[in-house]
């Protein structure tokens, strides 16, 4: 196959936009798995829940999906703190998170998916917004607005969270909690409260990521599964808990996937993330920007 430069350039740009979206999907896991050591494999299910929340608000009130996701942020935050309360009381306090904690989140993933299937069926759902149709064209480069808008909002969210974590007391406490609980207590911060807030934030990001997802493509309940491999590949590759590393990894994965689907067909792209993950685990488990 002859690789034309225009096609390659287009694929790279599409990949960067896709990468911005992947960053929004992975940031929640980057917080929960990277900083809190909670292996929340149900995160993609929460994202699908976010998509359906945006779908319901958009289709019944005609509100823009991103605005409706912002409205849903507090709800998802509370949902997250609630899930953490259960997780803490049942598993973390008993020191039982390895086997049963994982099974708990796996069951949660399954319950959310099947519940959505029972309520909404397996039909694809989509939202309506002014920016879903049009595309900006600069020579060989296409910038579809339905990719560009999530990309921009996602970068904003990332920057906002990075500022929050590095500048505020609570933010710094979140970064510290996985490193040294005792030291954190000596700084008069309650580790349980800090972790609850952090997990709430990580689930809240799923509301926005879900809205992005349903803007980019129609959604049905089992779509979330495709993202499990991607999300963890990105989080591990980015070096657990580092946002700049995670963004780099997202964009890298976005570009590689976009090139793969342009030149070999879209049915191969799920395998790319796994290849990424395996190579990372085998070669450099601390990720590209990891400290260890």
């Amino acid at each position, binding site marked *: 196959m002859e690789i034309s430069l225009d096609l390659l350039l287009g694929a790279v740009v599409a990949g960067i936009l896709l990468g911005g979206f992947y960053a929004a999907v992975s940031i929640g896991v980057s917080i929960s798995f990277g900083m809190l050591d909670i292996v929340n494999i149900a995160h993609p299910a929460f994202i699908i829940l976010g998509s359906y929340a945006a779908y319901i608000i958009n289709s019944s009130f005609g509100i823009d999906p991103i605005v409706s996701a912002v409205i849903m942020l507090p709800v998802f935050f509370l949902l997250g703190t609630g899930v953490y309360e259960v997780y803490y009381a049942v598993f973390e306090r008993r020191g039982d998170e390895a086997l049963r904690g994982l099974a708990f989140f796996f069951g949660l993933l399954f*319950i959310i998916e099947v519940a959505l299937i029972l309520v909404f069926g397996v039909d694809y759902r989509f939202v309506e917004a002014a920016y879903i149709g049009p595309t900006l064209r600069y020579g060989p480069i296409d910038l579809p607005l339905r990719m560009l808008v999530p990309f921009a909002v996602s970068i904003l969210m990332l920057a906002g969270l990075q500022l929050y974590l590095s500048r505020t007391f609570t933010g710094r406490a979140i970064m510290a909690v996985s490193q040294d609980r005792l030291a954190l207590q000596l700084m008069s911060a309650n580790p349980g409260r800090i972790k609850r807030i952090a997990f709430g934030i990580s689930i809240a990001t799923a509301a926005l990521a879900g809205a992005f997802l349903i803007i980019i493509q129609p959604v049905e309940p089992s779509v979330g599964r495709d993202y499990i491999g991607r999300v963890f590949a990105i989080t591990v590759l980015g070096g657990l808990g580092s946002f700049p590393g995670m963004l780099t990894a997202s964009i890298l994965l976005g570009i590689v996937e976009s090139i793969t689907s342009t030149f070999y067909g879209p049915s191969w792209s*799920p395998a790319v993330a796994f290849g990424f993950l395996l190579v990372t*685990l085998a070669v450099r488990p601390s990720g590209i920007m990891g400290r260890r």
Partner: protein
Amino acid sequence: MRPLTFWLVAIAVGAAFFGLSLLAPNQYYFQAGYVVLQYIVLATAWNILGGYTGYVNFGVAAFFALGAYSTVALYKLLPLPLPLLVLIGGVVSGVVGLGMGYLTLRLRGAFFSIATLALAVVMETLITNWDYVGGSRGAYILRPAQVPLLGNYIVYLFLVMLALAVIAIGIARSIERSRLGFGFAAIRDDEQAAEAAGVPTLRLKLVATTLSGALMGMAGAPLPYYVTYLDPASGFNLAYAVNSIAMPLIGGTTSWVGPLIGAIFLGTVQQLATVTISSALNLLIVGLLLVGFVVIAPNGIVGLVASLRAAMRARGVHRQWKRASREPLPRESPR
């Protein structure tokens, strides 16, 4: 019970069960029984890694479907007898399990779990893109209608799966009572301490993944003959993973009895629910039971029974003590 005696008893129970099933009024019982037996194999296989060493495998569907698809691939090449196909399916999945374990088991446990989760997605992608085994359209398998001696082919499939279930349980119990099993338990309780005490942890974990993967592949190998039409979406169905994890956790993970009880209980409930209610709802039931048991009864049904018996015994002791305390103490006779 000595291992040899246990094997003999297990085989005898299996044979008796088969004899009993021949009285079944129609073939539906073989259809349903096959599924329950298949879950006994899957749950026991999962438990060898998950329950004994504490490493969670989410990719059951990948190992299972790999066994099934190796049958499909060979079916197109040359006709082989079913037991041989089962063996080949086991070898293929076992090798994948070994490779998977080698790549990820040197890291923290969570990485292994995540990698297995991704393995299922990628295997599905590979099979979907492999036209030789049908690709996304799926593959048809023609099975002979009759088998000599047994009559209908479904009876033969049932018998093969029954034998696999007996073998899987026998292996699981032998492991429990052996050096290997004590090594596994040491890894589960404290891996660093085990390593420091001289347990070859990586090698033992690789044995567990290989064995567990191989048994899952063996359970999957007869599937194409059972369903006669196999496509990636049904072979890699997430229900296999959820069930294989839920059954040991509901039954109890520390011994071979747990997965057996869990598989029989949950498998039967599902067969009934699928017939009477809907199949989506019955998966929801499995998810809820899994989360419910993990939260409320962390040691499963076996643990519940054990603590109930301990409580009864404690009450018995208490009653004896009370009766004893009501009686006057025997006075010591002066010398």
